[in-house]
């Protein structure tokens, strides 16, 4: 018994020392789509090798990521909720916001398409879903995808909250897709997560290609003057890496081999107006 105790104690001490002696770290608060699609598993190790920083990726919804930024609990944000981001910048929480990449949102649902939305535009699609009372699985977690969904409902003049056909999962994108698949419902998703999970879902793309469904990702460096503990240099280094031409090339190629199509389109340095923002 004593021997076991001694070994465990030694192990914990080792753990303590290794944790204390670790390299400078950067907390990257980001959305679930960048992690669930596997993109960050490709990029982060490269950055760590190049820069010597250790990156702590915290994959939460864009809403929570920005809250962490507001409270100085992150060093860099990689998010996709443009309206909320503009407010975030206007309030002085961020010092620099740069365009990284885009893909698009799609409305997916059972192939039988009970609400008959196939081939319609985004607003018409959700109007029909609401009109038919077909099940719609919402993220309901203030993520970028949820924010986009709310702007669509608003534009369509529909209040889905409290409706029986409108179910909020409160989960990440991957899990929400599984819920929609299991319940044969409709949902709004980013294309990257959908492609990465498609094989198990049995849900089909029913509405896509609408300018309203653009999904744009930005990196935001945070304001060190409010929260001096922010690792601003590390945040900047990682942001610079994300928009670096070499990284952008990798982003553009990511997923081509596995899914037959890129999951993200690199946009660094482009004028946001060119994307219709």
């Amino acid at each position: 018994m004593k021997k076991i105790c001694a070994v465990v104690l030694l192990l914990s001490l080792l753990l303590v020392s290794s944790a204390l002696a670790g390299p400078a770290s950067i907390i990257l608060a980001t959305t679930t789509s960048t992690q669930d699609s596997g993109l960050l598993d490709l990029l982060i190790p490269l950055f760590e090798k190049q820069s010597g920083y250790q990156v702590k990726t915290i994959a939460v919804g864009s809403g929570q990521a920005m809250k962490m930024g507001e409270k100085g609990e992150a060093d860099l944000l990689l998010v996709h909720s443009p309206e909320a981001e503009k407010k975030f910048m206007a309030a002085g929480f961020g010092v620099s916001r740069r365009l990284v990449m885009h893909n698009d949102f799609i409305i997916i649902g059972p192939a039988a398409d009970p609400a008959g939305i196939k081939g319609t535009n985004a607003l018409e699609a959700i109007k029909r879903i609401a009109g038919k009372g077909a099940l719609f699985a919402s993220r309901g977690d203030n993520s970028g995808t949820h924010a986009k969904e709310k702007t669509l409902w608003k534009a369509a003049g529909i209040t889905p909250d409290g409706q029986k056909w409108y179910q909020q999962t409160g989960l990440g994108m991957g899990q929400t897709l599984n819920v929609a698949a299991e319940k044969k419902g409709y949902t709004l998703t980013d294309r990257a997560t959908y492609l990465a999970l498609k094989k198990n879902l049995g849900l089909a793309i029913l509405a896509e290609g609408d300018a309203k469904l653009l999904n744009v990702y930005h990196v935001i460096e945070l304001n060190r003057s409010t929260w001096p503990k922010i690792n601003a240099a590390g945040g900047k280094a990682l942001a610079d890496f994300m928009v670096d031409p070499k990284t952008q090339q990798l982003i553009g190629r990511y997923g081509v081999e596995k899914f037959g199509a890129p999951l993200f389109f690199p946009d660094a340095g482009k004028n946001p107006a060119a994307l219709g923002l």
Partner: protein
Amino acid sequence: MELIVEGILTALKLIVSLDSEVVAITLLSLKISCSATLISLLIGIPAGSLLALAEFPGRRLIISLVNTGMGLPPVVVGLFVTIFLWRNGPLGFLEILYTPLAMIAAQAVIATPIVTGITNAAIQSLPANLKLQVLALGATRCQMVWILVREARLPLLAAVMAGFGGVISEVGASIMVGGNIKGQTRVLTTATVMETGKGNFDVAIALSILLLLLAFGVNYALTVIQQRERPR
């Protein structure tokens, strides 16, 4: 059905091939939960003995609180530990949020009431005369406590198992204070949640099987120790 078979096959493949990432995740789970259990024993056994043997006002209230704490929800612990450990929180200067240390701390908070509660019950269930007998034979108070703890060692091993079982299997606190960071704080439970989210059900099943094997292995070892000394 196909999925379950596939999951089990993937699990076997991952275990047999000693996939380096899976091995690292498994070892980290073990390291964190063992450290947390050890801390909870260092606090819980003395505290439980004190509650069982000492008389002081408010004792019943404290025992009730400890017993309630045995069912402390891990997410609640996770939330509070996270808030305390935030950079700008009261313990932010420690800079341990999103590290294994934070996970050990949170898990120790979960396991300590379990160990304290079971220790208290174990010592209280010893024959009442034993304490008097030991004292009458000339033992000091410290020696008396030590003898009683030794006497209760079999139920105390149950406390170790319950504490360890509670923390190795929890996910709520680990994912909040650890962040599920690849290569740093990803343990079996948080990796299972993530792989499920990614739709990699086969890998998720594989990780679950590993978790069950790990929990079984540790409990088997402890049970062997416990049953070796079964009173006849």
